């Protein structure tokens, strides 16, 4: 038996494997294959693997070896497939492991301090507490934006809950999801390079603080506070969280704890995905409140209740679930291997 005969003998199997690869690649055709054929696929794959392993001994010509390499590669990708989400592992990860990790996380505290630090300083400097810099907000935000802010809140919010009208609640909500969660994700992505992440955090903290301080001096303060109270807690915390997740990535390649930079980065990558999910959920929740409840004429106490409720949820998650209980934080079930 020589190479040509061997090739002829094997050609049928290889072609069959090739065809089955094409079928496995399409979801609809894969479902129609049936157990027997799929078992056969495994057998064909192993046979092709064996042929490839023995290619050298068989003295197969190079282009046949090349063909086998890509055939085995294609089949390998059909047999070893991506794993999808599992609810139970995610529950454990989200409510038992993650809060514990976040409570002790230094990036979390850093992001928290940067955002709220700049927020409070800017608010103080532009507020009416005997500020030594009376024109701070004007210099920072510009006259145009300030006038726009005043105009926006000149009228008290009057819509009934969820009413359509000029700017429907749904549109507003979708707009807030798009805009705010976009900022959050940008802040997260920027954190990978550390400085852009810190900048976006500080920038948002300063701007928001200045707006709050400035509005507190104006007669529109009532309307303003009626608008922002309900959704503030979720939205601002989500910014902090997105910044923290980003910085975690960024610091992982700076301080590697003995790993190589890329390995350290990959480890951090596994850890930040759940945080990312949480802050996206928070942004969406904030946008729902902001779109439907905040601009409505619902009584102020109801908005306060929502604010207190959302603060309570956050406190429960981060402080109660998160308070170190000595639970051994095991290897994340989301890890790749």
């Amino acid at each position, binding site marked *: 038996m*020589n*190479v040509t005969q061997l090739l002829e003998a094997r050609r049928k199997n*290889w072609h069959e494997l090739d065809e089955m690869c094409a079928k496995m690649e399409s979801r609809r055709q894969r479902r129609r294959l049936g157990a027997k054929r799929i078992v056969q696929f495994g057998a064909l794959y192993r046979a092709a693997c064996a042929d490839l392993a023995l290619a050298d001994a068989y003295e197969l010509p190079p282009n046949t070896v090349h063909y086998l390499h890509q055939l085995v590669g294609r089949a390998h990708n059909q047999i070893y497939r991506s794993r999808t989400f599992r609810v139970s592992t995610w529950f454990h990860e989200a409510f038992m492991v993650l809060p514990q990790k976040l409570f002790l996380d230094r990036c979390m505290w850093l992001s928290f301090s940067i955002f709220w630090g700049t927020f409070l300083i800017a608010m103080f400097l532009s507020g009416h507490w005997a500020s030594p810099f009376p024109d701070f907000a004007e210099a920072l935000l510009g006259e145009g934006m300030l006038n726009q802010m005043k105009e926006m809140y000149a009228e008290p919010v009057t819509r009934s809950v969820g009413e359509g009208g000029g700017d429907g609640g749904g549109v507003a909500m*979708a707009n807030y999801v798009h805009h705010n969660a976009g900022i959050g994700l940008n802040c997260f992505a920027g954190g990978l390079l550390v400085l852009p992440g810190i900048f976006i955090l500080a920038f948002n903290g300063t701007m928001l603080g200045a707006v709050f301080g400035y509005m507190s001096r104006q007669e529109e303060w009532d309307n303003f506070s009626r608008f922002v109270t309900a959704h503030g807690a979720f939205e601002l915390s989500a910014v902090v969280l997105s910044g923290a997740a980003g910085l975690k990535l960024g610091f992982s390649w700076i301080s590697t704890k003995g790993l190589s930079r890329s390995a350290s980065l990959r480890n951090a990558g596994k850890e930040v995905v759940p945080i990312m999910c949480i802050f996206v959920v928070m942004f969406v929740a904030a946008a729902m409140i902001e779109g439907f409840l905040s601009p409505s004429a619902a009584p102020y106490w109801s908005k306060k209740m929502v604010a207190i409720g959302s603060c309570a949820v956050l406190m429960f998650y981060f402080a109660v679930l998160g308070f170190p209980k000595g639970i051994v934080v095991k290897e994340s079930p989301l890890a790749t291997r």
Partner: protein
Amino acid sequence: MAQSTDQLDTHIQIVTPENIAFRYQVAGPFRRLPAYAIDLALRVAFSTAVILVVVWISDYGLGDIGEAVWLLLFFLLSWFYGGVFEAMWNGQTPGKRWTRLRVLTFDGQPINASQAVLRNVLRAVDAFPALYVLGLITTAMNDRYQRLGDLVCGTMVVVEERKSLFGVTRINEPEVIRLAGYLPANYQIDRELSRALSAYVERRKTFSPGRRADVARHLSEPLRVRLSLPQGTDPDLLLCALYWRTYLAEVDPAAAPGPSSPQAPAAIPPVSMGVANDDEIRLAPPIHLRR
């Protein structure tokens, strides 16, 4: 556990759980560009279609709902399009499927959902400050063309080639077969030589006759001396004849015109197959296929 080992140009080697090493070609940024363009076009087309629907239903007083849905879809599309597709389609988006690319982990395993989502969210950094400049710099700085998102998730993009099988290249020139008859019967062709021969024969069709002689001379000159063939033997013919004897001789002995030489190819004992003799080939796992 799969592990990656040495790397040859853009090919990387992967060892599967079956303990088989096979090669992948890693896709560089410009190989990935068409896939990205296709995905972008799909996203734009889909958004436009949704806008048209929104405009249409706004005549029926549903404009607000339509606009809200459109904004949400736009948000999801711009941040999670790639992630969702790569998680569901085993590392491929429509663009990647079209251009036959696939995202795999560092060591050739399939990616999981969180890797798929994360590497696509981190696109925002790679696009920084504009036109994926940072991503281009990063891909240039490592040998698997990983952008920052890939580095964080430990993923890489590979080309899934679909070559067709050509089999053994045939040679039918009568001069080759005649020359093969003059080769000493006891000359053993070792594995490395036979591999070189088939590499040469597979490519020689694309060479001009002058180039063939040029390339073949380096190998055929020492061979000619060892086989004590007369000076002036065509280098290309000699390599082809050796190839013919290694790969083709036994299959079609009838094709060989019996030259007057006593060492006719038909009389040559079965060509040595290096280590692999008949028994070993039969040892290859038998495949029992049930219909």
